[in-house]
């Protein structure tokens, strides 16, 4: 094993966090997000424009000489923590991380620069539940055109360009206007899925699909842990705040030991998740030990984020079951995240190979 990972946040990262949090406070308050989920435009493209255009965050992973900011996965992780805290309906993970990483693996500088600027949004046309190294569906490449249907493509409706793997082993860029994108009724209202149908669409060959998809999904899985951490931290903080205020039996509910112990336990899980997510981001940035770090983070993160959201709902009791209270957005995101880029079980199975703890 190489040198110790840096698990802290730098001053610059904390400044970045503060700026993103401010921006989201203005753009993505909970009532606004709930209202948007009920509209025809679930994505908040104004918030996206502010993040991408205003702050240049879509290009963090792209080197400066290729049109980006030349930052690293560590900074992206901080942005995702804040997006998780707000369950922000922006295609950041899907476009600025997953699609961008796929393009970084290819020779596609023009498109990469467009995604980095945020002027165009990309989506990798691989189902959201596929783990790094897992099998994924491809479309048929015939006579220079693409044919087929792909399902569970996250944020496809917001995308201008789709990155589509085909049966000839290539990854193709397809303009969204040349494809039929049909919304699916999604469990997570803030990261909606869609079906992509290609009926003789023209695609531009970018490079080898397998390497690009693997790189994209590994970064997606590793950085998803930071989103899950942000989500879990928000639900814990809100629940603690509520339980200090809410009185029953003439006492603040948070003074009952049975609840205090549950919250302390949850705090411990959240603290652990921060270290695991930070480690994954640092490993992706340095390239050292990244496969193990990503698998560990994803094997751990899903249960914590879901547990945090479930506890938040239970401890808010009746009000937690209502549509007005935002906790349902967090539960839906957490549960959906527990499947996204591979389940905890899939990541444990991968880990068994990586650290030589083979199945019977």
């Amino acid at each position, binding site marked *: 094993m190489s040198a110790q990972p*840096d698990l802290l946040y730098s001053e610059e990262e904390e400044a970045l966090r503060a700026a993103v949090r401010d921006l989201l406070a203005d753009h993505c308050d909970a009532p606004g997000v709930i209202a948007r989920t009920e509209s025809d435009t679930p994505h908040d493209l104004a918030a996206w424009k502010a993040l991408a255009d205003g702050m240049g965050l879509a290009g963090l992973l792209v080197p400066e000489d290729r049109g980006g900011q030349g930052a690293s996965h560590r900074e992206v992780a901080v942005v995702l923590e804040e997006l998780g805290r707000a369950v922000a309906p922006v295609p950041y993970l899907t476009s600025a991380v997953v699609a961008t990483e796929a393009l970084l693996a290819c020779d596609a500088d023009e498109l990469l620069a467009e995604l980095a600027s945020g002027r165009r949004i990309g989506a990798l046309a691989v189902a959201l539940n596929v783990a790094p190294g897992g099998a994924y569906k491809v479309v048929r490449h015939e006579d220079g055109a693409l044919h087929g249907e792909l399902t569970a493509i996250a944020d496809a409706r917001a995308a201008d360009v789709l990155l589509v793997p085909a049966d000839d082993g290539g990854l193709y860029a397809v303009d969204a206007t040349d494809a039929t994108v049909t919304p699916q009724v999604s469990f997570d209202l803030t990261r909606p899925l869609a079906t992509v149908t290609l009926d003789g669409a023209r695609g531009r060959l970018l490079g080898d699909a397998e390497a690009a998809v693997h790189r994209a999904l590994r970064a997606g899985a590793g950085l998803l842990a930071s989103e899950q951490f942000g989500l879990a931290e928000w639900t814990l903080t809100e629940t603690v705040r509520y339980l200090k205020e809410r009185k029953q039996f003439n006492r*603040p509910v948070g003074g009952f030991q049975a609840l205090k112990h549950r919250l*302390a336990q949850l705090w*411990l899980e959240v603290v652990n*998740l921060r*270290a695991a997510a930070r480690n994954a981001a640092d490993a992706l940035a340095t390239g050292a030990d990244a496969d193990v770090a990503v698998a560990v983070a994803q094997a751990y993160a899903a249960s914590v984020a879901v547990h945090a959201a479930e506890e938040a709902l239970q401890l808010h009791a009746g009000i937690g079951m209502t549509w007005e209270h935002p906790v349902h957005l967090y539960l839906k995101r957490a549960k959906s995240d527990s499947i996204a880029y591979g389940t905890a079980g899939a990541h444990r199975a991968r*880990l*068994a190979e990586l650290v030589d703890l*083979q199945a019977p």
Partner: protein
Amino acid sequence: MTDAAELQRRTAELLAAHPPATTDRLDFLKARFDAGLAWVHYPEGLGGLGAPRSLQVVVDAELEAAGAPDNDPRRNGIGLGMAAPTILKYGTEEQKQRYLRPLWVGEEIWCQLFSEPGAGSDLAALGTRAVREDGGPSRLSEAESGGDWVVNGQKVWTSGAHNSRWAILIARTDPDVPKHAGITYFICDMTDPGVDVRPLRQITGEAEFNEVFLTDVRIPDSRRLGETGDGWRVAQTTLNNERVAIGGMRLPREGGMIGPVSKTWRDRPELRTQDLHQRLLKLWVDSEVARLTAERLRQQLVAGQPGPEGAGMKLAFARLNQEISGLEVELLGEEGLLYDDWTMRRPELVDFTGREAGYRYLRSKGNSIEGGTSEVLLNIVAERVLGLPAEPRTDKDVAWKDLAR
């Protein structure tokens, strides 16, 4: 300002004057202490140079590379982790000069006389009495001329008392005030008449802990640490350092209890089952994540931003040790039905990996009890970290002598 280069220079000087290959171990350690390279963040003259704590690694790395002996810190965990920072903060100049050097070099081992049969989680309820010989408790503040305290009581769960030269002791000096207010902190000479150390045989068969009976033990006032009646506050320094010591360890991957069971899994495929595989992988992930949290806590300490994670780390490691060792016994099947040795031993230190799975399983049951039970630590996390309301208290304003026992 003492920087890394200055420490490297001083370390090189020490090595040149006392080559490890030809210097007696204890002589080398004493020279290291006198050079201020023992714990660099301590003051000059007390084994340090007033340097940032984070620079200790510079010295340690140079000395390790040169093959210098260390002070075997595991043998004197209570001395180094708890007694020393308390003496540094509350001790008189004479006390610091007398105790810190032999403590650091390992000539004198320390133990901790805190817990009692009736005062575990509720430590401030302790009943061991210390009475001023030259008058009652009411005259304590004016009696500054020395004299003796006479101590009577019983302590329990005292690790290493049988090897110890000194003990940190808390005793009740005023029963007429509420329980936290009437406690005083002392340094007790374990070789004094009236100190009776009896091995306490445990669930594992060995006697790592002791009962300590104190009968008319005379402690001179010059061995009082901090003000009379201020012992609870002094003890907080000790207890906070205890949790940092537990949470601040640096472990390699598989460095904890998960190591031996992972090795058994790899070496002995015939023992593997699907059910155990799933449980092992989950615990492996949990161990790795806890290790990362401990590493993050350590990095925060080095950066001068201590986090509240310390109490949490102890909770996590207690649960992990218990679950992993339980799984290990199951994995071993027929061998899990056996035990390595029930002979009563009195070990110098706890060595989890030097014994077998059954021992680890039984000993780890203590991890959620020693140094604060997991239930009490959960309360501490809830109240001090999350800011949730405190438990209702019925003993706060009642004199200790009037509490129900």
